[in-house]
């Protein structure tokens, strides 16, 4: 009689093992390590060894006005950017879903911002936004409109950064929604038309509800990404002027690699992790209910 070998007996464990190791080493370990660091005082500038300090870092950071501002800014940036991207992305997808001349060219052009390197995008937009020699103000003054300070002013820096984010990431939403639209079955549309629905009614009561789960999937992906935005902001403003565009991720970077306070930086990053988790769970719940 054939005796099953060790491998055969433990297939259930061995097959998923690489995936488990990967998740364990590259995802769970760093999170737990950051969590552990957040309870310690580890300041690289002082040369003192790592010391357990309990909740002191949390007390200090969570009551720091700069942190609270960064939280509000992170959410403000994310909500506005993703909302605009979702609406614009869906509209563009609906337009591209129809047959028209030059459609493939339009799709190709749409992809370009997606493949651009964020730091290069940041540098180009920095030049574009320059208040003295930038194209944005040159265009405005040519039209006889008042000039702006864009990323050089505390009040306009976040909206200016949102514009860059929208420029770069709307195509992603468009692509996902376009794929969703292509997969819809024809029958509900025919039924609606037989019932005498107008084009607007078909869009409002058939297309949008049917494609909603896809839109929400795209929004989850964007939301997680937008909450963590780092490259564009770091390349364009470094969190400035002052702290006017400092999001949680930028603040975490400054605390770790400019101030070298690893414990406190970990608190900021744990908070960011918590917010990303919370938002993702919320949207996933919304998606489940829209599918029902």
């Amino acid at each position: 009689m054939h005796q099953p070998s060790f491998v055969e007996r433990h297939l259930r464990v061995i097959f998923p093992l690489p995936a488990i190791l990967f998740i364990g080493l590259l995802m769970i370990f760093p999170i737990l390590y950051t969590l552990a660091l957040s309870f310690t005082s580890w300041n690289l500038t002082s040369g003192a060894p790592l010391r357990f300090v309990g909740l002191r870092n949390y007390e200090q950071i969570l009551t720091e006005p700069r942190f609270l501002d960064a939280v509000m800014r992170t959410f403000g940036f994310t909500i506005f950017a993703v909302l605009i991207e979702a609406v614009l992305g869906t509209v563009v997808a609906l337009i591209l879903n129809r047959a028209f001349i030059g459609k493939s060219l339009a799709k190709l052009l749409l992809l370009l911002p997606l493949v651009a390197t964020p730091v290069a995008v940041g540098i180009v937009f920095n030049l574009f936004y320059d208040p003295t020699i930038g194209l944005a103000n040159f265009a405005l003054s040519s039209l006889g409109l008042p000039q702006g300070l864009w990323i050089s002013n505390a009040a306009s820096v976040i909206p200016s950064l949102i514009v860059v984010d929208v420029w770069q990431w709307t195509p992603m939403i468009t692509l996902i929604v376009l794929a969703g639209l292509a997969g819809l079955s024809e029958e509900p549309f025919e039924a609606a038309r037989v019932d005498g629905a107008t084009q607007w009614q078909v869009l409002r009561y058939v297309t949008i509800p049917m494609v909603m789960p896809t839109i929400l999937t795209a929004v989850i992906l964007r939301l997680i990404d937008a909450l963590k935005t780092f490259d564009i902001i770091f390349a364009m403003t470094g969190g400035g002027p002052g702290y006017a565009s400092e999001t949680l991720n930028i603040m975490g970077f400054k605390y770790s690699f400019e101030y070298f306070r690893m414990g406190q930086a970990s608190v900021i990053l744990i908070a960011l992790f918590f917010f990303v988790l919370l938002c993702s769970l919320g949207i996933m719940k919304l998606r489940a209910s829209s599918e029902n």
Partner: protein
Amino acid sequence: MKKILTSTVVLMSSLCLSAGAYAQTKEIRVLLANHPYGELLKTAIPEFEKQSGIKVNFESLQEGQLTTKLTTEFATKSSSVDVFMTRPLQEGKMFNKNGWYEPLKAYDFSDYPKNVMSVAAAGATPFLVPLVTEWQVLYYRKDLFQAAGLQVPKTFAELEATAQKLNSDAVAGIASRGKGAAAVTQLSSYVYNYGGLYIDKGVAVFDQPAAIDAIRYYGKLLGTYGPKGVTSMSWENIMPLFQAGKVAMWTDASVFYGQIVDPAKTQIPAADVGIADLPAGPKAGSPFIVTSWGIAVANQSKNKEAALKFLDWASSKELATKGMLSNITMARTSVWKDPKVLEAVNPGLVATRAYAAEKGYPLDRPYMSAVGEARDQIGELIIESINTKGASTTLADMARAKAARVNDLLKDAGEYGQP
């Protein structure tokens, strides 16, 4: 078969030979900065490799990234760096306190001025070799001055009046860094000229009236006559404006002179660009003159002999001369006395250096371990002052709070009250 055997033997023996040769070659890892002198070293390294037989693996990094990389590698004890370029004022105190610099007892420092050595040594033990010096100057547009019939300002009062006269919609009267932490170094000379300091005997004193007056003056000057959006400008934003002819005067470090008179990079004829001493303030005429870059051996290096050899070469008088001829203002005294060198260097640089060397102050930022965070604190005051054109009613209170915070940082690092 025989043929195969023979070629295998030949291959094996050549592999062994090359492995032996590889084991004999000394290798060192060197971190350089993206700085003109770093570039000069890069091009000269093959020459060093040839004469010393030491293989140099170098990496070039932007200054902020260099500090981050070194700090992280040294603090986590995972570094294989042997030699590195270092900013004495930014990281010197921290690196020395943590024992990351190898003491340089055998090096001959007789060619370096005393005030330069104050940031290169702890007591009698030097830990880095100064490479590059820079000082604050006033760059100005000779053509605009001539057209307006103006003289180069000698005092802060004249500076403000000149900025006012030259300021127009097309050209900003004056520019200087306004971007928070990046502006702290340029504000320093203004503070000194008002009779203030950032830190005195280990205590933050930038909330004292002299420093507050300087911050107000700086804010008024830039807020009223500065380029649009100056609170987000460091030198990399101001230089293109100056090169495009959008700025009449610019106070910044001497190191940019070469680039603003380089015809390939600027739209203004070199003849129209002037360089002058930073105008004096109500209390003093004391611009910063600092050792912006040095070079050091890592304490944990396992190839110290080769590393020291590289350090000697990289800080040699020959290379310093080469640096001077490429418009890099070197720290060695002798190269500033060499008539051949002086012939090639712009007389404006020589004259402003002489003034700064005589009257200047050897620091341009709070000299402490947690300098990055302290600069952010002072940077907030600069932005507040520029935004209110120097008239902020909360500036003094803000400064008190920021100074208290910097004092906390000093206490955390055990540097509070230390001279």
